[in-house]
């Protein structure tokens, strides 16, 4: 049996029945990593020894039938912008190459509490800025379905690792689509929770008001398992919601009868890849067949999403990245003759081109004289997106759109055209601006065999609606059972 190919819930069942051990699971995943990692390059770092030891330790509890959670003994991956005590957290940036946090992110604490086994830190676009994982300072991750193509980004490492069975589930972070877009590109499930559902404590910030940590999983059930463990109030994050926790797994059911689904006309305009449109509408029809009602709706400000996003996200990023000055930790350029030169050289050598581009954009947008025209205006437009969604959710329970405008593109194809690259997130950005939950689910394949994702957006804190809808489709289509050939 290829243990690495199991889903979390399948592995959990076998662990419970004592047919397998956690150590065997970890070993299987590690040997899978040995086998495919040279092709995929999903990990910045693999924690072999500690994960084996961890698995062995947990086996003692497991043998006595003690399970803290469905994640007990399960090998998972962690995006490299989530702090893990004692392990380098690099954000795939030179400037943090040697940064070892003395603390765990809240989600890491929670997963440790749930007895998950960490196998490694996954590659990403530097500081989560990008849609292809080509902006990593260390390596280019490849798409398991076609090694010439990008895995999406910025959580490309996490999505590729899950798709290639290098871990059973992973965490990513999503600022403008960075969980959903790579999940769609790699044919896995990715969920960006409602802003505030998952603590951001320990997530290295890109754009604080948009960032959210979420699961990337092989199927919907696994996504629910991961979300159960990482959600919940955290006193160390003021923006964390105080709502009581929900059991997303326990309430998972494939019923969509009477559910009202909205199709926003602004997302199905000319220029959209016909294969994507066909596949997404296929999913919509499936839900219809299962008893859902489908309505055309409007989200009138959609056209401004990308522009608004790139002002707000870069403004916050320019500020969040100021702390990387070479003074206290991380990389410091060696030959600065005075303080200013030390700052300048450190940042010039430590940051990659995309990060610098965004720092420049954000600094400009916040500068005196431009603040009102850019930042303030963008905040006002952001309020309009929120209004759009409020109006829409009066009529429907969920909104369905494509996750990406095209399937995964070729490595290098858009590297020199940042604006083209920014459009990869055109369908995902609005959910971050509004703070609503959104999920990407595999819904088909292109003629070239590349996965296509469908996005479901929902009301604040109605993750369960999204998960149930996705689960219904998954059960009916069986699409999640298809694997890349590696």
């Amino acid at each position, binding site marked *: 049996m290829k243990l690495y190919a199991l889903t979390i819930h399948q592995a959990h069942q076998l662990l419970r029945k004592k047919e397998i051990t956690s150590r065997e699971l970890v070993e299987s995943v590690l040997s899978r990593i040995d086998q495919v990692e040279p092709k995929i390059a999903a990990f910045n770092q693999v924690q072999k020894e500690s994960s084996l030891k961890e698995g062995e330790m947990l086996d003692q509890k497991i043998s006595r039938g003690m399970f803290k959670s469905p994640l007990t003994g399960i090998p998972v991956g962690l995006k490299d*912008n*989530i*702090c893990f005590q004692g392990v380098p*957290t690099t*954000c795939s940036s030179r400037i*943090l190459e040697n*940064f070892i*946090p*003395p*603390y765990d*992110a809240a989600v890491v604490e929670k997963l440790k509490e749930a007895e998950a086994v960490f196998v490694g830190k996954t590659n990403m676009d530097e500081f989560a800025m990008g849609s292809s994982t080509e902006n990593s300072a260390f390596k280019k991750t490849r798409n398991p379905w076609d090694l010439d193509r990008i895995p999406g980004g910025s959580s490309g490492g996490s999505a590729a690792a899950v798709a290639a069975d290098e871990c059973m589930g992973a965490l990513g972070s999503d600022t403008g689509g960075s969980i959903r877009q790579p999940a769609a590109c790699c044919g896995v499930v990715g969920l960006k929770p409602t802003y505030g559902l998952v603590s*951001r*404590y*320990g*997530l*290295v*910030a890109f*754009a*604080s*008001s948009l960032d959210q940590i979420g699961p990337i999983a092989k199927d919907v059930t696994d996504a629910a398992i991961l979300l159960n463990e990482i959600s919940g109030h955290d*006193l*160390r*994050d*003021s*923006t964390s919601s105080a709502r009581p926790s929900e059991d997303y797994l326990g309430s998972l059911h494939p019923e969509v009868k009477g559910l009202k689904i909205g199709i926003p006309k602004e997302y199905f305009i000319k220029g959209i890849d016909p294969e994507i449109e066909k596949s997404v509408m296929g999913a919509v029809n499936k839900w219809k067949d299962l008893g859902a009602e489908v309505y055309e709706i409007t989200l009138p400000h959609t056209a401004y999403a990308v522009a608004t996003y790139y002002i707000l996200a870069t*403004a*916050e990023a*320019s*500020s969040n*990245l*100021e*702390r990387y*000055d070479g*003074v*206290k*930790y991380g990389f410091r350029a060696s030959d600065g003759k005075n*303080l200013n030169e030390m*700052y300048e050289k450190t940042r010039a050598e430590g940051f990659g081109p995309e990060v610098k581009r965004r720092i420049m954009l954000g*600094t400009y947008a*916040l*500068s*005196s004289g431009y*603040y009102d025209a850019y*930042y303030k205006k963008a905040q006002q437009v952001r309020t309009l997106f929120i209004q759009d969604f409020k109006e829409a959710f009066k009529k429907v329970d969920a909104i369905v759109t494509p996750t990406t405008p095209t399937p995964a593109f070729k490595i290098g194809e858009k590297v020199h055209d940042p604006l083209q690259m920014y459009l990869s997130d055109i369908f995902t950005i609005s959910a971050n601006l509004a703070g609503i939950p959104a999920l990407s689910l595999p819904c088909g394949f292109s003629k070239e065999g590349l996965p296509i994702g469908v996005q479901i957006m929902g009301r604040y804190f109605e993750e369960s609606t999204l998960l149930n809808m996705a689960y219904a489709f998954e059960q009916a289509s069986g699409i999640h059972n298809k694997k890349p050939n590696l």
Partner: protein
Amino acid sequence: MTRYQCIRREFMKYEAVIGLEVHAQMLTHSKIFCGCSTSFGSKPNSQTCPVCLGMPGVLPVLNKKVVEFAMRTALATHCTISPLNRFARKNYFYPDLPKGYQISQYELPLAEHGHIDIQVDGVEKRIRLTRIHLEEDAGKNLHEGIEDASYIDLNRTGVPLMEIVSEPDIRSSEEAVAYLKKLRNILVYLEVNDGNLEEGSFRCDANVSIRPVGQEKFGTRTELKNINSFRFIQKAIDYEIKRQEMVLEEGGRIIQETRLWDTQKGITVSMRSKESAHDYRYFPEPDLVPVKIHSDWVEEIQKTLPELPDAKKERFIKDYQIPPYDASVLTQNKKIAFYFEECASLYHRPKAISNWIMGDLLNEEEIPISPRQLTGMIELIDKGVISGKIAKTVFEEMLRTKKDARTIVEEKGLLQVSDDEAILSFVDQVLNANPESVEQYRSGKERLLGFFVGQVMKISSGKANPGKVNELLLKRLKNP
């Protein structure tokens, strides 16, 4: 003397316009966004955690006490507390600023539109407050004794500060100092700040400009930074006013800039001009949710406010029938005010108590004798056990030994002599020793009486009851 200080009075056709910005450290035990200690003088970097160091991924969490302390101040200075206020980021690079930005309040401060009433030369004046907002302190660069390097102490990062900004209502350095003393007094009464200028827990920046008398438009201002004593604040403002007058008299123009007070030379010097000023790129802090202040919370805080200096002064005048001057002196220091009131509750002579406090205790760092001891001594005077003169000696002895007045009197044998026979013997001694003076007195030189009294007091070592001495002296001089 520099040339600016020599300027002649006849040039004085200008009026100064001064606004003050005070940074007051709040007396919380922990920092504004984390649980680290705020105590002063610890080993460098011993009071830090990932949050106040701004390590990647960590987030600030607002200390509720900080908001409450600022609310107390806002209420005590008649400000309107905003039901919704918000933090902002003030971005700039400096080694002592770990995040590369300072979390402060900008367009939505905690409180606005207050005032403080001051008195200068007996004239009452109202200084309006623009706003009170919250922010975190930065760290400190260490250079002393270190060659070719700077070290950084981040113990102060995240120490909670309140910035209290006045309107440009102040017209002289005297008014500025009166305002600052009054403000400090209020903060200390409220127990939100320790009022310590030397340790920087009460810091002041002054914006100074001048304009021709009668002109409404403000002149170009300069900002004087971080001056750490009332005396220097007064001197720096005076100097700056004269400097600006001189510049204008000479046909020059004032440059908007930040200036520092050079304590050694007694002058202000340019630090940076407006052109090189930072663009702080303020924007709302996305890691903190806006602070909502419900009216219930304001009412709750209102209930905890102590009696403030002005109210206390009025009450002292009314309840204790002491002169307004006494009441205002006694209430300028919370400790003294409490001391006075405790004394007054023990003994019924508030004016005598006030005299002793104002004469001898006002400048004491810690009041060395208890209210019971002070009133005990006054009681001894009133009962005629000791004279007012002896009381001085007893008082000094009390300060030194912390013993009660009665014990001192007994140990030193300082009891007042009121016995007629004993005093008569002193009187006779004096009169017998000065026959010529007696003769002169009797022939009409009555002011010699004072001389005889003095002599009697002298040979009685001050213990003779002065009333009795007078009485018996007159008796003997009239009837030899």
